[in-house]
């Protein structure tokens, strides 16, 4: 084996695997025409390659790749399908909204305005209702009606009289 053989040994494998550049290919082929040892080494590589190719091809023919692919596809589909919790979380994700910073003061201002409107309305409703008589309206076609408030203020009486001459039963 010449000195050039050792420098080409790395290229020889690449040449066998057809991974060399044009320049390297010319270099290797030039060397091979002169060097029988490297030719033998190359033919050994070809034989070894053939020995490996045949059983791999046979094994590949036996393998059911369709079934494997179905399994892979199912796995991909399941990963793509998000759960309802993830859907809800993504729906409720307000971060894109908050990224537009203009929304934050706008939302805060809306809340303040709403509370300023709502609180006095609620308070007024309650206080005014408390002051009013508990009887909003009363009507009777057959009776005369009298409304009487208990002294302690926790009882209201609606009394129906048969006629104007009936005696008032209230003490």
């Amino acid at each position, binding site marked *: 084996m010449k000195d050039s053989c050792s420098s080409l040994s790395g290229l020889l494998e690449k040449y066998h695997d057809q991974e060399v550049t044009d320049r390297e290919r010319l270099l290797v082929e030039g060397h091979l025409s002169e060097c029988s040892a490297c030719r033998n080494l190359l033919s050994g590589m070809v034989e070894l390659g053939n020995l490996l190719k045949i059983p791999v091809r046979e094994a590949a023919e036996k393998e059911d790749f369709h079934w494997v692919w179905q399994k892979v596809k199912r796995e991909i589909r399941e990963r793509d399908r998000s759960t309802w919790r993830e859907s809800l979380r993504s729906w409720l994700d307000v971060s894109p909204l908050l990224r537009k910073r203009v929304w934050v003061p706008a939302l805060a201002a809306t*809340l303040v305005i709403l509370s300023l409107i709502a609180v006095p309305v609620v308070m007024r409703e309650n206080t005014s209702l408390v002051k009013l008589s*508990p009887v909003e309206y009363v009507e009777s076609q057959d009776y005369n009606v009298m409304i009487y408030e208990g002294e302690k203020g926790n009882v209201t009486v609606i009394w129906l009289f048969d006629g104007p001459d009936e005696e008032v039963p209230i003490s």
Partner: protein
Amino acid sequence: MNWRTFALLSSLMLFLFFPSMVFAQVQTRVRIIEASNVGSTTDPALRDVHDQLGSLFNFSVYRLLKDVNLNLVGNRTVEVPVHKGRTMEVTLVGEYRTMVELRIKITREGSPILNTQVRLSSGRTILIGGPRHGGGVLIFAVSARF
């Protein structure tokens, strides 16, 4: 405004205003009492309101004819049959933080003898009385708990 912003703002508005629009269940007690001056006994079931009745009316006997607890929900009328073709209808028409609004209708043989709308705070009683019954009169005591 995209659909997500619209949905969020709508939810916020609903959250703020929904509680004032919803009717909760209101427990209402209706006691139908016969008051007369025949005798001097008082129904033991009316012991808690006897003093109240005594301070308001000049009857010597109070007898509990019916004690009904109603679970009222918004705008749904509940009918309470009273004696001899008389019926009382109670409807919850409004509900506020401190009081409820009830519409009360009393009918005799299908025709109304009283229509009223009252506001009741929790624990307050409305007494509706006057219709003749036997030797005395009927008194309806209506109170609410919420």
